[in-house]
């Protein structure tokens, strides 16, 4: 690990610009409030506590990431927030109203795209507008015009009449984002949305997402297992731990805005990454070592 050799500042140190930004965020109204959320379910091994005492707040137009080791319940958490799963205890408040079941006020983007394969790109983006019976807001604009606007925003106007199977993975996910945003949700929930994409496409998508976030009035809650992705995109990172899924720490990312790929090697970025590494991959334990006997000749060592 290179981070060991370089003297890094503490991830808690913030430049004046960054701390001023966090103070401004703190003045904004709270959009999503999660209070002592818990989730248990019964399995063959008995009762399992998947999530325990999860509490955090998301303010308007904040970008929050949730990361954690596999099995920490981050996907369960976002599914509960979306209303797709029930919670066992605690409460979720969106604009101070209790959340029960899925709804248009929380848009969701899934890892598996979940575009309706029988609908064209345009019809996919119109789906939410149509089931809600018309446009959400602007008078005199048809659902189709509004959908076209969103498709244009993600740069796919040439593909409005294409079917999902004609698109690449990155394009599909852009349609999924446009489809979720067309409903003008209060918060956009994203469940490892770029997990299935190759590295180059993922980098492009991250840049698109930051541009969209900057220009659209939207609050984003983003689940990922990619530490760099979390740092690059977020204002704050909620770090979960497994068994039971609990909040380990909420980190304010000290990397300045606007974000750019060059910042991946900045001192603040690396300091944050080092902290995340410590939280998510604690010192190696015996479990990581395989009981392998030597099967190569002496002197034939790779290192």
């Amino acid at each position: 690990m290179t981070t060991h050799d370089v003297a890094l500042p503490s991830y808690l140190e913030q430049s004046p610009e960054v701390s001023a930004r966090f103070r401004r965020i703190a003045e904004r109204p709270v959009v999503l409030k999660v209070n002592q959320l818990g989730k248990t379910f019964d399995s063959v091994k008995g009762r399992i506590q998947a999530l325990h005492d999860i509490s955090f707040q998301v303010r308007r137009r904040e970008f929050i990431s949730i990361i954690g080791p596999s099995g920490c319940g981050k996907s369960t958490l976002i599914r509960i927030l979306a209303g797709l799963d029930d919670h066992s205890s605690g409460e979720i408040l969106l604009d101070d109203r209790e959340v029960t079941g899925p709804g248009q006020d929380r848009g969701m983007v899934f890892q598996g795209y979940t575009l309706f394969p029988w609908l064209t790109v345009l019809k996919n983006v119109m789906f939410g507008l149509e089931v809600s019976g018309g446009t959400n807001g602007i008078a005199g604009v048809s659902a189709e015009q509004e959908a076209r606007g969103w498709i244009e925003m993600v740069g796919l106007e040439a593909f409005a009449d294409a079917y999902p199977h004609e698109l690449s993975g990155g394009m599909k996910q852009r349609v999924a984002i446009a489809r979720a945003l067309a409903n003008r949700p209060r918060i956009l929930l994203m469940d490892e949305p770029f997990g299935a994409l190759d590295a180059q496409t993922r980098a492009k998508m991250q840049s698109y997402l930051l541009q969209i976030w900057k220009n659209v009035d939207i609050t984003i809650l983003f689940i990922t297992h990619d530490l760099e992705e979390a740092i690059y995109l977020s204002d704050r990172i909620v770090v979960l731990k497994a068994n039971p899924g609990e909040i380990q720490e909420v980190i304010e990312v000290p990397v300045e805005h606007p974000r750019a790929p060059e910042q991946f090697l900045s001192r603040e970025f690396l300091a944050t990454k080092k902290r995340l590494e410590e939280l998510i991959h604690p010192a190696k334990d015996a479990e990581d070592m395989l009981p392998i006997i030597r099967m190569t000749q002496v002197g034939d060592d790779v290192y």
Partner: protein
Amino acid sequence: MARARYFIIWKELDPRRRRVFQVFSFIIPLAVWSLVSYCPFVWHPMVKVSDPGGIAHFRVDALVAKEAFFRENAKALEEHRKPAQGVLANPVYLPAPHEVAKSFYKAFVTPPRLPEEPWLHESLWHSIKIIIWGFLISSVIAVPLGILAGTYRIFSYMTEPFVEFFRYLPAPAFAALSVAVLGIYDGPKVAIIVIGTFFQQVLMISNTTQRLDPALLEAAQTLGARGLKLFTRVVIPGILPDVYRDMRILLGWAWTYLIVAEVVGNSTGITWFINQQAKYRIYYNVYAAIIMIGIIGITTDIFLAWLGSELFVWKSRKRSILSRLRTVYSTSRTEPETVQVSHDNA
């Protein structure tokens, strides 16, 4: 080494070879049939008498078992009578391909033996009508029921156990009952087709419905769809192509019940024709009729498959005729068409 490529598991062949082998699938059985029909040394257990000679009970064109023919000839030679002459032949129930091919045409133009009997095309049409009615009646009830059972657990539990039980009852077992209830004409025949199709149909459609990707339902819910809208806007369009494919398979099953159905009550349709021709020992007509059923079946299926790929473009992953026509129309007037292939990686 070149030969090895045919024996790679699941390895697709190039289109030309595929076509060749598909044609072979018909040529091989035809070749076996021709071999048995045209090569006397393969089978030919009979002799067709061309000249009875001095043997009193032989007639011209009569088929005689090979041993009997040679035995009688040997006896005739001993008694200084003129031996009979003939050619090796197959039994009457195995006509040669060319005879069957000829009867394909002849069967349609040969008038029925009795004036009130139907022509072949009338018999065929009668059969097709029985199938259409049976399949239609079954589908009208089974498709909605299957979709409901596949969508809502309450319908699943209220129908599937009984349907599972009933589908083991052979449809022909209800022949006598359906004649008692529905008379001797087309009613009981349609009923047999319905009984044979309905229960499988409910289960198949229900199964297909349950295979809908649940993530699509979740996505729709987060977009604000609920209740009936989830059903009409996600479940129905999502399963339609697979239901359509099920229907093609089930239509094939309906045909398999036809022959049983048509002997219930008064015999009609293609089954009547087959049985009648067999009675007159005109076996090449029997073969022709059987092959006709196959041809009607496969042509319908090929047509329905094509229609399906046009209806569900998003599933068949091709462009429909309609959209291709639209392209031709627009390109002939304006600039070249923009290529709709995903070249963009993001």
